[in-house]
């Protein structure tokens, strides 16, 4: 007896609306059909109406948790079109902030997975430790989320020696807590029972379906934009790319906890070797013609921005490909064959950020043609449709 259960768009397990139509029979999942589009906000279109500097604040709000990764990606793309080089101190500050955002994201994610498993105590404890990171980010940039620190040409504020002192103290505490959670998640029998062997993604499937981020690193494949294509200051700072071989949710937990410890050591190295100098350069308001693609390792995976400019002060086209969009086909593969109780744990295991992942494309199901329209074509089609009514 197969019944169809809708998982989402409104569900206590999901933080953002997405719909999975699951066909189940007796607690086993037979097939999954995803549906996106509940939170499309038209950000790519809005970005064409604002200048490059104002676009930074719009791009920041694509996602609340990985906002710094999006802004860094966008600034790097525009700086590449302008063909300028930002000062080295700005590169190090960008690296420090990106790693702090990674730590904050992984603590939040740990609490999320705990909540999906019913382990509310882990949820409360890891969010309590996340407050340490948020307080440090507030002393550096003035805000807890959406830091408004990046600008085209560098960063807007400098890191003072008092801030560096409080950073060192906070980092000690974060390292201690991350080690404690590693021990808990490796030894607690209920956590192991819910995560080992759940949501298995073999390495061949991971490469075929183009998974990104910790999802693919937990299947043993070492893919990390910081090592493959370094940006900001990553070519000067030594660090390890963490991989585990388990291919299941337990390995993903371990990959992320190890990444917290690795980020702490990256920040310490960057603080010890911070170069002196300016933090920003002046850039012209009008950007000459050109286009650029930039890649950044957001906490959830590989993030891609494309910017095309035509000499005015507003961009012609901005395209964002967020990491969660690449992780959804592997997710559908992971869910089939498991039980209903595993659905929220696996969905939380890829760290979904659906708000990042909403893009529009047109598909004609009869002829299987796919295409993308620009502003004029869309307006022309809308006029014809309303005239016909």
């Amino acid at each position, binding site marked *: 007896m197969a019944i169809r*259960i809708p998982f989402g768009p409104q569900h206590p*397990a999901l933080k953002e609306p997405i719909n999975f139509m699951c066909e189940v029979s007796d*607690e086993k999942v037979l097939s999954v059909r995803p549906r996106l589009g509940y939170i499309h906000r038209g950000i790519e279109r809005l970005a064409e109406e604002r200048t490059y500097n104002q676009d930074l604040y719009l791009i920041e709000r694509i996602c609340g948790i990985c906002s710094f990764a999006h802004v860094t990606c966008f600034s790097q793309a525009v700086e590449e079109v302008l063909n300028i080089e930002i000062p080295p101190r700005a590169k190090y500050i960008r690296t420090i902030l990106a790693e702090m955002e990674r730590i904050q994201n992984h603590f939040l994610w740990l609490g999320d997975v705990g909540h*999906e498993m*019913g*382990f*509310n105590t882990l949820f409360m404890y890891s969010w309590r430790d996340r407050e340490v990171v948020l307080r440090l980010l507030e002393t550096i940039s003035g805000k807890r989320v959406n830091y408004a620190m990046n600008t085209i040409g560098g960063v807007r504020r400098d890191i003072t020696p008092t801030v560096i002192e409080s950073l060192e103290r906070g980092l000690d505490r974060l390292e201690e807590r991350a080690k404690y959670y590693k021990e808990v998640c490796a030894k607690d029998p209920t956590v192991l*029972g819910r995560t080992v062997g759940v949501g298995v993604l073999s390495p061949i499937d991971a490469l075929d379906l183009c998974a990104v981020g910790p999802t693919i690193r937990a299947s043993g494949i070492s893919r990390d934009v910081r090592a493959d294509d370094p940006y900001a200051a990553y070519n000067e700072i030594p660090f390890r790319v963490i991989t585990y071989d388990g291919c299941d949710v337990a390995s993903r937990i371990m990959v992320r906890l190890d990444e917290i410890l690795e980020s702490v050591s990256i920040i310490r190295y960057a603080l010890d070797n911070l170069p002196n100098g300016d933090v920003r350069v002046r850039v012209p308001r009008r950007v000459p013609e050109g286009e650029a693609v930039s890649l950044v390792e957001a906490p959830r995976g590989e993030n891609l921005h494309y910017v095309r400019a035509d000499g005015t002060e507003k961009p012609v086209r901005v395209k964002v490909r967020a990491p969660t969009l690449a992780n959804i086909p592997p997710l559908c593969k992971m869910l089939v064959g498991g039980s209903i109780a595993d*659905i929220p744990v696996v969905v939380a295991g890829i760290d979904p950020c659906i708000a990042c992942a909403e893009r529009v494309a047109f598909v004609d199901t009869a002829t299987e043609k796919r295409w993308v329209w620009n502003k004029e074509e869309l307006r022309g089609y809308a006029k014809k449709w309303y005239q016909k009514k």
Partner: protein
Amino acid sequence: MVPEEIVTLLQIFLFPGFLFLFFLAFFSEWVDRKLVAKFQNRYGPLYTGPKGILQPVADFFKLLAKEDIIPTATDKTVFSIVPILVLALSMAPLFLIPMIDFSALVWFEGDLIVIMSITTLVIIAMFMGAWASTDRFSTIGGMRVGLQMLGYEIPMTIAMIGPAISSKSLSVSGIVQSQAGGLWYAITQPLGFAIAMICLLAHLQKVPFDVPEAESEIVAGWMVEFSGKKLALLRLAKNFELVLAGSLLVSLYLGGPLGFWLPHPSFYFFLKLIVCIFIFSNLRALFARFRIDQVLMGAWKYLTPLALLQIILVVI
């Protein structure tokens, strides 16, 4: 002298009857919520009444005032009766447990068997409620309720028979009285005590056994379509079950209202009940939730053989 019938009526309705049990149910929910919050480094209920003690009462009255929605596809008679049935069935065994004296309000030889069958009937009523709701999530929740009962029912029954064999009486009051001379059964039968505690946690559907009501998987499980007054009665029934589980543990294994230096026996009962709720809250904050197949496998592979072992040790 006040006639005997008036005293009995007052006892049934006030103390230790209905009114006292209502207060005990609200109080035990408050203790549970405050303890879990303390373990998680936060406050818990704080503002309603001194230290938040009126919070369960406020929740109950708020739910009574909300709109009661009955979906069109449900079996309306069964749907409306189930909350009342569950509440009545979970409150009834409390009259058979000695709380203020060494024998309960109502007692007879064999009332332990009655308690065990009523706890099974509660689960069947929950299953009926889930089936009558005719909703995808509640069907899955109802099936899980039944499956979980198949797992823990037998070890729980065996663990409760252990003290009955030692005291040569099938009445809860008799078991309490037979612990008066010697040691409590928690010390002579520790394995049975642990198994009874785990199985009662599964009966209460609390983490790690809250599979039928898994909030992040099937929304509210078997309770998903109940709202308003029906939900208020169901939540109150859950509180009564918490009191029932604690009282059963206290009477069968910890000696009920027995003790040395406090003035009245009911203080002992109270203290031991709070200790039992402390253990339940500790286990609730400590573990994640199991899957239904892991619950069944664990129950049949570990709990049932250990319970049988305990019985063999008692008889020898």
